[in-house]
């Protein structure tokens, strides 16, 4: 029960993002497809099969210790790239202050990738959101349900082929509410 104000003297920065990318290449030579760089941010594009092993290595290696999963999301490259989906992991090390981005390619018919919840507990809701919005199934996830959309919603809203204004068919839950409102109208007070 004590709170202190610390004047942070930050430790020197850890590894350069490029060095981390090199390390991943060394350890998983057959998994890395490409390394991309934009505005000093490096992303490593990998195959999806060994994603848990790669993440476990990045999390546990004492020199990397990428313990903070900043963000986990997916991107739909429908028609732009050969592989439709990419699951993106933004990783950061609070101890060493370095970061890296991992992009795992997930091909189209029934998109599937292994879950990283055993490594970062915080990935739980991110993966549920990805499932909800893109329909990517995370195998090994403890509780894979829709999170933002209703349970019985059809389609995955953030896919590029999903219409911006929503589907033409009204959601069944909305129809129920309208029906209920109509029924309850007879009890309305008409003063």
């Amino acid at each position, binding site marked *: *029960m*004590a*709170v*202190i*104000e*610390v*004047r*942070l003297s*930050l430790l020197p920065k850890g590894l350069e993002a490029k060095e981390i990318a090199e390390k991943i290449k060394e350890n998983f030579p057959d998994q890395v497809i490409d390394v*991309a760089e*934009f*505005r000093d*941010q490096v*992303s490593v594009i990998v195959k999806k099969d060994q994603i848990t092993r790669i993440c476990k290595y990045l999390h546990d290696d004492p020199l990397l210790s990428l*313990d*903070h*999963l*900043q*963000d986990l*999301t997916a*991107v*739909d490259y429908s028609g*732009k790239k050969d592989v439709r989906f990419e699951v*993106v992991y*933004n990783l950061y090390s*609070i101890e060493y*202050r370095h970061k890296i*981005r991992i992009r795992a390619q997930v091909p189209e018919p029934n998109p599937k990738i292994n879950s990283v919840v055993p490594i*970062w*507990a*915080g*990935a*739980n*809701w*991110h993966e549920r*959101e990805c499932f909800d*919005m893109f329909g990517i199934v995370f195998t090994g996830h403890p509780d894979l349900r829709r*999170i*933002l*959309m*209703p349970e019985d919603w059809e389609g995955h*809203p*953030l896919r590029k082929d*999903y219409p*911006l204004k929503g589907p033409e068919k009204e959601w069944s839950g909305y129809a129920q509410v309208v029906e209920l409102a109509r029924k309850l109208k007879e009890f309305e007070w008409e003063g």
Partner: protein
Amino acid sequence: MEQLERVLETRELNVSMGPQHPATHGVLRLVLDIDGETVVKVTPYVGYLHRGIEKLGESLSYFQALPLTDRMDYVSSMTNNIGYVNAVERLFGIEAPERARFIRTMVGEMARIANHLLWLATHALDIGAMTVFLYCFREREWILELFEKICGARLTVTYPRIGGVRNDVSQEFLDSLYKFTEEFPTRIPEYETLIDKNRIWLKRTVGIGVISAEEAVNWGLTGPTLRGSGVPYDVRKYMPYDAYDKVEFDVPIGTEGDTYDRYRCRMMEFRQSNNIIRQCIEKLPPGPVMADAPKFTLQPKDKMFPITHPTKKHAFYIDEKVCKGCGMCARACPAKAIFGEKKKPHKINQELCLSCANCYVTCKFKALKIVPGGKGLSEEKLRELAAAPLPEEIKNAAGHLVEHFTFVKRGPRAPEGELYVATEVPKGELGFYFVSDGSGKPYRMRIRAPSFIHAGVLPRLCVGHLVADVIANIGTIDLVLGECDR
């Protein structure tokens, strides 16, 4: 006795709390499995406020998506804007001028104080301390009034813009803000005397919702919720943006990782934020508040002033030989002064014309001619004058106007690439992940909302505690459902 025990069987009870519960800060629904008074299982349901901001962002230009970020965390919309503009600026590769960066830091910290005040007010109210609520709103009102002074809005401000800020701050505003920073530190002890050593407050917060440092990092917690567990991770220090590397401040951290430590952390942050605001006012450098990057930011309005001058009314005239009769100008005209059949030259009713130049900028065939100062002249005279070449000043202004129009309509084109930029909002780390395909709209706009992740940790914090502590736990993670559901 034996018989009685058989009759009084106990079983777990399933209680739905929310989405319309006053203590759930919006529309959060928790399904609690309780065994007597103890919580066995918590299942949060979110998404009641889902507006699809990420999907909307993909269909809007970078300028247009900015006001959407106000609607995420409506308690501190200023910091959301700052997070967005910082990410977009990095994507464009431009930098805001020094003065704008200091102003942004200043207003960002004001928003932090306003947010923490609202948090303290509602958190204390949930737990049962009514007076704090009234005290906090007194000061929050003061800050909102200051916001009103600089941008006219209190809640959804949209004051920071891509490349700088909307407008410069006046000396009068700085004086009143400085007065606030002098007064505010004397108000903090007022809240503290009310609850800091209050026995009920201590009973309700000490040892409640304890989370260790490693676990907090593993769960992805950020902001004061993480710092209460003793991890000094603050984006302002770790990845400085705006002017945070030019001001001095400390990071308060807790030791126990319980509700009380998180409360203390936020109370200390009041003082730090107050200090940062003072330093910003003292160090505020002179200069412009908008970056000079014509490809990415809007140019000052006075460049096109000669043509939109309110007193010198210019007339517009459609050249029959050039006009194809597409009807674009007629649709753009706010006064409905343009008429004509389809595929035949249109005409302007000069009596209705407002000289707004909307038709001029929409015409693709350059059929519209400007007649400087020609308001009120006859049709014949206008035709005669329209053939004459334009004065240089008007010509330039008209060019700027067309440029401005197409720029706003199309939006700035971002280079191809992807990046993730994080900023520290009062709730934690707000991240924007952009994927750009080189067009005027983001290919993918992802928002990492701290409230969303913090709501996910609720089951971990609540299980094993009493039902009443669920309320304390919702308060301590500082949840805003608008941001959580996006």
